[in-house]
C-alpha cells in the first residue's frame, strides 16, 4: 500500500447524489439564531408517548387486554345467569354481580403486565436505551415519563374495557334478575378499582423491567408474584395466611369486590398495598437507573 493517495485536510468533499452539500452549512447558520432547546419532563413525556404509540406490539397488546376483559366478563356472566337456579343459598348470598362481570381482568393483568415490562426492557434488548439515556443524561425523567405515559394509557383503556364488560355482563345477568347498576353502592369503585389494579400491575412490570433489564426475567418475576406466590401462601398454615393480604393479587380481588368477603381485606387496604408496591419498586428502579452504567 502506498501513502500517496492520502490527502489529510484537503477538502475532497463530494456529497452523495441524494445529498446536496449546502444542506449541512444551511443548518449551521441556523444554529446561531435558534433558541436553546432544553430537555424538560413534559418533552420527555411526549417522546415516550411517541415511542409507545409507534410500536405495533403496543396496539396488539392493548387490543388483547380490551378483548379478554370484555369477552371473559360476558362469558362468565352468561354462564352464571344460566346456572343461577342450581346455586346454593350460601352461593347466592355471597354472589358478586359486579366482580363476575369484571373478572376478565385476571387475563388482562397478564397482557398489561407484559407490556409494562416491554416498555423498558425492549429498550435494553435492542440497545435503544443508550440512545434514550444518551440524550437525557439525568435519566430519571425517562423513567417517570415511561411510568406516567404507560399508566395513563393502561388506566384509560381498562376503565373503558371495564365499563363495557360491566354493562354487557350485567345485561347477561339481568335474565336471572341478579344484575346490579353502576350507581349501586361500591360498584363504580369496583369498576375503577379494577382498572387501577391492572394499571398497577403494568407499572410493576415496568419497574421490574427497569430493575432486571431483561424481558424474560422480568416477566418471570412478575408472573411468579401474580400467579405462583398466591398458591404458595395458600398452602401455608392457617396462622400465616394473612400474609396473603399483602400480595398484589389479593389486593386486586379486594378492590374488585362489592359484596364483602370475609377472606379478603378491605378495598382501601388493597389500594394501599398496591401503592406501597409501586413506591418501593419504582424507587429501587430509580436508584439503580441513576447509578448503573448503561
Amino acid at each position, binding site marked *: 500500500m502506498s501513502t500517496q493517495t492520502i490527502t489529510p485536510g484537503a477538502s475532497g468533499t463530494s456529497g*452523495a447524489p441524494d445529498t446536496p452539500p449546502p444542506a449541512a452549512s444551511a443548518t449551521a447558520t441556523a444554529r446561531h439564531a435558534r433558541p436553546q432547546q432544553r430537555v424538560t419532563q413534559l418533552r420527555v413525556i411526549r417522546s415516550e408517548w411517541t415511542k409507545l404509540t409507534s410500536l405495533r406490539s403496543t396496539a396488539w397488546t392493548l387490543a388483547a387486554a380490551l378483548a379478554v376483559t370484555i369477552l371473559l366478563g360476558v362469558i362468565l356472566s352468561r354462564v352464571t345467569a344460566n346456572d343461577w337456579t342450581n346455586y346454593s343459598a350460601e352461593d347466592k348470598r355471597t354472589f358478586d354481580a359486579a366482580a363476575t362481570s369484571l373478572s376478565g381482568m385476571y387475563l388482562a393483568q397478564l397482557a398489561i403486565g407484559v407490556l409494562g415490562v416491554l416498555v423498558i426492557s425492549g429498550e435494553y434488548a435492542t440497545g435503544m436505551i443508550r440512545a434514550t439515556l444518551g440524550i437525557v443524561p439525568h435519566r430519571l425523567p425517562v423513567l417517570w415519563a415511561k411510568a406516567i405515559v404507560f399508566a395513563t394509557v393502561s388506566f384509560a383503556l381498562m376503565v373503558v374495557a371495564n365499563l363495557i364488560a360491566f354493562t354487557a355482563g350485567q345485561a347477561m345477568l339481568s335474565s336471572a334478575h341478579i344484575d346490579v347498576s353502576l350507581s349501586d353502592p361500591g360498584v363504580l369503585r369496583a369498576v375503577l378499582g379494577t382498572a387501577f389494579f391492572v394499571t398497577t400491575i403494568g407499572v410493576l412490570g415496568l419497574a421490574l423491567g427497569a430493575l432486571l433489564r431483561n424481558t424474560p426475567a422480568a416477566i418471570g418475576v412478575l408472573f411468579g408474584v401474580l400467579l405462583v406466590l398466591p398458591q404458595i401462601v395458600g398452602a401455608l398454615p392457617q396462622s400465616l395466611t394473612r400474609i396473603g393480604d399483602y400480595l398484589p393479587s389479593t389486593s386486586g380481588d379486594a378492590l374488585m369486590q362489592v359484596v364483602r368477603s370475609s377472606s379478603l381485606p378491605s378495598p382501601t387496604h388493597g389500594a394501599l398495598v398496591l401503592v406501597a408496591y409501586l413506591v418501593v419498586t419504582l424507587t429501587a428502579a430509580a436508584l439503580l437507573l441513576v447509578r448503573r452504567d448503561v
Partner: protein
Amino acid sequence: MIEARGLEKRYGDKVAVHDLSFTARPGVVTGFLGPNGAGKSTTMRMILGLDRPSRGEVLVNGRRYRDTTAPMQEVGVMLEARAIHTGRSAAKHLLALAHTHGIGRRRVDEVIDLVGLREVARRRAGGFSLGMGQRLGIASALLGDPATLILDEPVNGLDPDGIRWIRGLLRDLAAEGRTVFLSSHLMSEMALTATHLVVVGRGRLIAETTVAEVIAGASPAAVHVRTPDASALRSVLGGVGVTITATSADTLDVTGHTSEQIGILARHAGLALYELTPRQVSLEDAFMALTRDAVEYATTASTSRTAPSPTTTSPTTVVPTTVVPTTVADPEQTLALTGATGSESRA
C-alpha cells in the same frame, strides 16, 4: 471540544481504560484509533455519561455532559447503529428523540433527507441493512444540530458511495467549526477522514498526534538498493543512524540515507547501482507497529502484576506514578511512532 483528563474505567479487576487524557478540538476531525478492545467505545460512553468513570473526568464544550441542559445541541451521538428499537420506523424513532428537546418534525424531515433515508423512513428499522442503520444513526446524531459530534465506527457497513459521502459530510461539519470525534480500528480510513489522531491500545493512550505526523514518522524512508558491489556499498554508506539490511546477495535496504544521498555516495565511490527505490511503510503497517507496541506494553504490565510496579492495578500506586505528559503516553513508543520528525510538533 472534548477534554478527557485522566479517565479510567475498571470492571472489577479488569482495567478497560487507564489514565486516558486527550483533547478533541473544534474545527477538525479527530480520529480515535485503536484495535478492537482498546477501550474506544467505553471512552465514548464515559464522555456521554452512560458509563461512570472510575477516576478522572471528561468535559464536553467545557462542561460535564450531565450538566448540560440541551444535550442534543451540545453533542450528537452515534454510539452503535443498532441503538434503535427494531419495531419502530426510522421517522418515528427520530421523532421520539427529537421530542425530548422540543425539536420539530421539520428538522426530523431535514435530517432524513440529509442522510438519504426518505424512501425508507416509514419502514420498520428492524429490516434495515447495516448501511441504512448507520445512516439512521448519523441522522439521529445530527438532529440537534450539535456543536460536537461523537461517532463510533461511522463508516462500518456503508457502501463505497456512502463512505465517500460521510467523509465529505464529516469534513464539512468540522469546517463549520464543529468538533468531530470518530472512532475506527482502520488506520487507512482515519487517514482519509481525520486530521488529528488519538491513538489508544489496551485502554492506554499511545499517542496524540496528527495523521500527517504518523505518515511522516512511521515511514522510515527505507531505500531499496540493488548493486553488484553490495559489500563495498555497505562500507561506503555505514555510519551513525544508518541501518543496512541485506535482503539478498545484491540487494540492500538502507535507512538513514535518502535515495539522493545514496546515489551521490555511490558515484563518489565508483560503484554501479542497478536500482535505487525509496520505499514507504504503509499506514496499516505503521498502525500495526503502534498497536504491537501497545500490546507488548500491556503484556509486560499484566505479567508484572504480582510485583510492585508503576503499572500494576493497585490503587495506591497508580495515582502518583503514572504521570503522563499531555502529548505522549510513553516516550519510547512515540519515538517509534513519529521517528525523526519529533513528537512535539503538533499543530
